[in-house]
């Protein structure tokens, strides 16, 4: 079980994490953050395998993934 | 080693730098200053330092930037065309408030000019040279002993004010030999809590010159200029010679001041009331002392090995109170006779005008 945290205020909505997530569980939110971008967010945390490909490709170091998040 | 020895100007600069605790030198060969490099290439490894021969003066001055940021006492030296190449780096060093010593053994110019003595880089160092609002302390020694003393002083000033200091020599001073004493001093190691040395036990230190928000840049410039005001207040230096009753005042710096002094002595033998004023710091220019020295003057002769550069500061200091005329030669250090003749001619005019 993994908890994926998005530092939404730093996200510029480039969507690379959306593309590289093998489980297709990351989406860009409908709302905008303070910078005016649609930040990335996760729609089904239970499917996350902690592979961290999203974090690896994120150019703004928005994503942190910790094991053992709230079930 | 406090005994008197015979030494060439360029070698003396190198030895003085070592005495002052300088352990890093970055430079590029150019006549007539190359002996500074050669001496330091020999000597710095002996005292635990490093000499790096850069691929250009552009690179050399940026190595100085890096070494100064890393906390070292550091120097470079060149001659006029090479100093031109360093101007960009000097602007950055001044803005980043890094202590560094830059020696200019001036040669003929503009362009490739020649390898003769010159004083034609006055504007470049005293008035700016690089881009933006900054000042350089500029020292003008007139003998090999003073090259030594001013090199040591330059390191002290650079450290005290966190600012680059320029020492003006010329082809003659760099190449001539005179008896000198290298003082036996024990300089403290540099104390630079702001240096980028790796942040063990503190937060990150940053050395930079970029201030994108307009107010930050304005604050930065205001802060620099508050420091420059302090330097102006503390560091104006000059030497007067027989100025008390002088109706004719010769103003000259560096090697030219020695020639001027000899000419003044010759003219005094003729009963002419002539004196000499020698700025030792070109920036800050010793304007108050010049005003005092010129209080009885009816004519002032600015003597320079250039087409007339220092003369502008002489005029700024004296205003319209007294005529200021230029005596100059290019490509050589004149004989005292020539300045003596100029003094005689002015003395006749002064007497004719009653």
């Amino acid at each position, binding site marked *: 079980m993994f908890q994926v945290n998005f530092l939404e205020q730093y996200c510029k909505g480039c969507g690379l994490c959306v593309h590289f997530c093998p489980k297709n569980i990351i989406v860009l939110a409908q709302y905008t953050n303070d910078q005016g971008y649609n930040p990335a967010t996760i729609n089904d945390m239970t499917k996350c395998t902690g*592979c961290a490909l999203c974090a690896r490709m994120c*150019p703004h170091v928005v994503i942190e993934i910790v094991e053992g998040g709230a079930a | 080693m406090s005994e008197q020895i015979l030494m060439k100007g360029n070698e003396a600069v190198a030895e003085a730098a070592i005495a002052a605790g300088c352990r890093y030198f970055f430079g590029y060969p150019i006549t007539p200053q190359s002996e500074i490099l050669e001496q330091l290439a020999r000597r710095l490894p002996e005292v635990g330092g490093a000499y790096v021969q850069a691929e250009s003066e552009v690179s050399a001055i940026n190595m100085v930037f890096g070494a100064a940021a890393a906390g070292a006492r550091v120097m470079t030296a060149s001659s006029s065309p090479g100093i031109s190449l360093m101007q960009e780096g000097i602007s950055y060093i001044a803005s980043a408030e890094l202590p560094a010593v830059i020696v200019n053994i001036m040669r003929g110019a503009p362009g490739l000019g020649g390898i003769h003595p010159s004083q034609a880089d006055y504007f470049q160092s005293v008035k700016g040279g690089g881009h933006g609002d900054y000042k350089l302390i500029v020292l003008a020694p007139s003998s090999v002993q003073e090259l030594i003393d001013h090199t040591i002083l330059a390191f002290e000033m650079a450290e005290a004010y966190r600012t680059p200091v320029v020492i003006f020599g010329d082809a003659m001073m760099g190449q001539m030999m005179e008896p000198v004493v290298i003082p036996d001093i024990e300089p403290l190691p540099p104390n630079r809590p702001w240096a980028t040395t790796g942040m063990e036990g503190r937060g990150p230190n940053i050395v930079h010159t970029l201030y994108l928000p307009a107010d930050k840049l304005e604050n930065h410039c205001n802060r620099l200029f508050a420091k420059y005001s302090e330097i102006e207040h503390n560091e104006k230096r000059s030497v007067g010679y027989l100025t008390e009753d002088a109706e004719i005042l010769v103003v000259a710096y560096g090697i030219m001041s020695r020639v001027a002094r000899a000419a003044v002595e010759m003219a005094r033998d003729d009963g002419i009331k002539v004196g000499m004023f020698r700025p030792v710091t070109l920036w800050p220019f010793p304007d108050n002392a010049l005003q005092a020295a010129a209080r009885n003057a009816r004519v002032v002769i600015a003597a320079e090995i250039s087409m007339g550069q220092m003369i502008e500061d002489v005029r700024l200091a004296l205003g319209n109170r007294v005529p200021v005329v230029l005596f100059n030669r290019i490509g050589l250090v004149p004989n005292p006779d020539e300045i003596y003749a100029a003094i005689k001619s002015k003395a006749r005019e002064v007497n004719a005008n009653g």
Partner: protein
Amino acid sequence: MAKKGYMRPPTLLQKPWHFCPGCNHGIAHRLVAEVIDEMGLQNQTVGVGSVGCGVFSYEYFNFDGIGPSHGRSPAVATGVKRVLPDRLVFTYQGDGDLAAIGTTEMVHCAVRGENITIIFINNTLYGMTGGQMAPTTLMGQVTTTSPRGRGREQGLPFRVCEMLATAEGAAYVARVALFNPAQVNRAKKAIRRAFETQMAGLGFSMVEMLSACPTNWGLSPLEALKYVEEKMVPTYPLGEFKVPEGVK
């Protein structure tokens, strides 16, 4: 078993960056920070920035930093390293900064075998000034100063790694890319090897990273990654050009 999860490297300061959406500079910054943290060198590092999109690197890294003038970073790094030979000293430079105005400083730094590392971000143009042609611009590539596409009269792409690998003073020279997670992992290994080369005192090291600039290329972030893979890599082949004994 590979370690799962991901934490931001402590050596990156937590603040918003000026980089455009999808810009690979951020990935490069993160990799440098990760390697420094993994090597435990945060307190022994002096980073030397540059002018261009890398200009704020000293504001993003949490270690001592210097902001030099355009192209002169290898000279500045030389000054730092000679004074502090036991520190990790690296420059972070783009292709305008390194491969145009700073060519002299870069080449002679390598020729001297200066024991520093250059992190070289190649995105084929001047990003910060609005996408002008650089020496690294691809043939036919449209930029604001090659509006009809780079032609023969505007020169040919400059392969920095291949040139520097001929310098005897260069110990480690590698070109990597950032267009997918596997390449990113390879890039990180290259940075690690470069830093290890330096800390072992083996001489000059450089890692060139082919890096996407979606904004100035006029592509989406994803299209820009494809552009790196399909257009840049054929001109700038990936690989390690030089690896010293003992860092393998």
